[in-house]
């Protein structure tokens, strides 16, 4: 049996396990708390076919995209600077780790006051979740770059730009992609939390509206769609991450 067949069977078994546990929980808790996998999948299908769903999905997707771009730009820039200057990196690292462990939900009222209810607040909240892991991973990647690569670039007569694009970037890329992978999950979390607590649109808003009307099936269907989208993107990033790290 080929490796990809084994991999596909593994995935199918995991999915089957989740469905079985879900069904058992549904049977234990009842429709009032957890809808059945079949009913949830059916409602998810209905949502995908309805015109009302897609503006919400687009709103969440757009907020996630903007937040990721901001987290990446700031994280890559600050991480590169801190990694390139050892003293600054050593000073900043414990501060970043402390910020990383801070429950960022406590900052959401401040963000709402600054940005108001809308896309901007969700983007800002998503970005502050994603920016720290991208910064930490980038900083460590630059800090730990093999010094002999930089000596080689000097021996080959490469200028700063050539060194940055042809040595620094590819040498740090595996770690940066790892940071992006972690940053993606946290940015999505930030955006959805933002939508759950104060928003007029988006997937998080749909979940809250379903809770408000006690529509358990819709609530779980939206959650299922979010989970499937997140798993697909995270799997793609993990695949790229593994491919890059396999060479190192």
């Amino acid at each position, binding site marked *: 049996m080929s490796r990809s067949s084994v991999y596909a069977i593994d995935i199918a078994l995991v999915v089957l396990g989740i469905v079985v546990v879900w069904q058992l929980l549904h049977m234990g808790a009842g429709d009032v708390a957890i809808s059945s996998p079949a009913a949830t999948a059916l409602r998810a299908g209905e949502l995908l076919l309805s015109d009302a769903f897609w503006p919400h999905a687009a709103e969440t997707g757009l907020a996630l995209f903007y937040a990721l771009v901001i987290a990446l730009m700031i994280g890559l820039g600050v991480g590169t600077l801190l990694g390139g200057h050892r003293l600054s990196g050593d000073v900043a690292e414990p501060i970043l780790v402390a910020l990383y462990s801070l429950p960022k939900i406590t900052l959401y009222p401040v963000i709402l006051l600054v940005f108001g209810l809308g896309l901007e607040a969700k983007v800002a909240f998503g970005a502050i979740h994603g920016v720290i892991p991208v910064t930490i991973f980038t900083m460590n990647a630059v800090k730990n770059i*093999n010094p002999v*690569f930089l000596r*080689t670039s*000097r021996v080959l007569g*490469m200028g700063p730009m050539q060194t940055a694009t042809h040595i620094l970037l590819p040498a740090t*890329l595996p770690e940066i992609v790892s940071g992006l992978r972690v940053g993606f999950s946290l940015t999505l979390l930030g955006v959805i939390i933002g939508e759950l607590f104060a928003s007029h649109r988006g997937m998080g808003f749909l979940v809250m509206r379903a809770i408000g009307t006690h529509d358990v099936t819709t609530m779980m269907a939206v959650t299922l769609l979010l989970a499937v989208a997140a798993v697909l993107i995270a799997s793609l990033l993990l695949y790229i991450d593994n491919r890059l790290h396999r060479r190192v």
Partner: protein
Amino acid sequence: MTGEIHAHLTRVTRVYPAVAGNPPVHALGPIDLELRRGEFFAIVGPSGCGKSTCMDVLAGLAPPSEGEVSFEGNPIRGSVPDGVGAVFQEDASFPWLTVWDNAAFGLRRQGVDAAEIRRRVEYALGFMGLRDFAQAYPAQLSGGMRQRVCIARTLVLQPRLILLDEPFGALDAQTRLLMGDELLRLWRETGATVLLITHALDEAAMLSDRVGAMSARPGRFLETLETGWPRDRDSSMLEGETFGHITGRLWQLLRSESQAAMGHHPDAAQGGTRREAG
């Protein structure tokens, strides 16, 4: 052996400045070194004696604190001159590139046309026995093969002066001997001047036309030995009596220096005197 001076160090010293409360470190010199065009010169000495610093200064990777450095009659100031190639002890193959792309890396940065890159890379990979691994990544290769990739990357640039900083330091003894043979073959075919930094006396004695024995830090040349080997040579020189004489003489020069580098004080124990720089 006489010949045109290819590279020159004149009264060179290198002092590393004080860092974080530690005093400055006088790593090297003053030393004088004349490399003759086309010769194979090795520097041996105890650990931390400044051998690699000497190579860095000659390559233009580190400026001398005092003294002058020149290559082909031109002073070296702050950058690696055209025509100088270097291979380091650490694995410097780029893990994100295949063997072929690693070898072609320097040529691509120099804007050499594709046909010429193909010609030179294929020759270098064939020469280094890597043709069958052209599409492999360094992670798939042994340590010795990765060093050959680095040598191939240097070779394609057709350097006139090749600097080798303990390139086989991480390899086992048998592989080092075989790599030494390949290095001699490369040296004969290219006609380049080679400076080899090594801590292995047998390697220095087998490969070189001349061997400079360096004192413990700050490194100074104690003596420079002429091996007298013919240009067409290989590791079979190890079987000869002369090889034993050369390594014996090198060890005689370096024994007390190595003890000094390890923190022992042979002068006190044996009542000897330390040799002055030669």
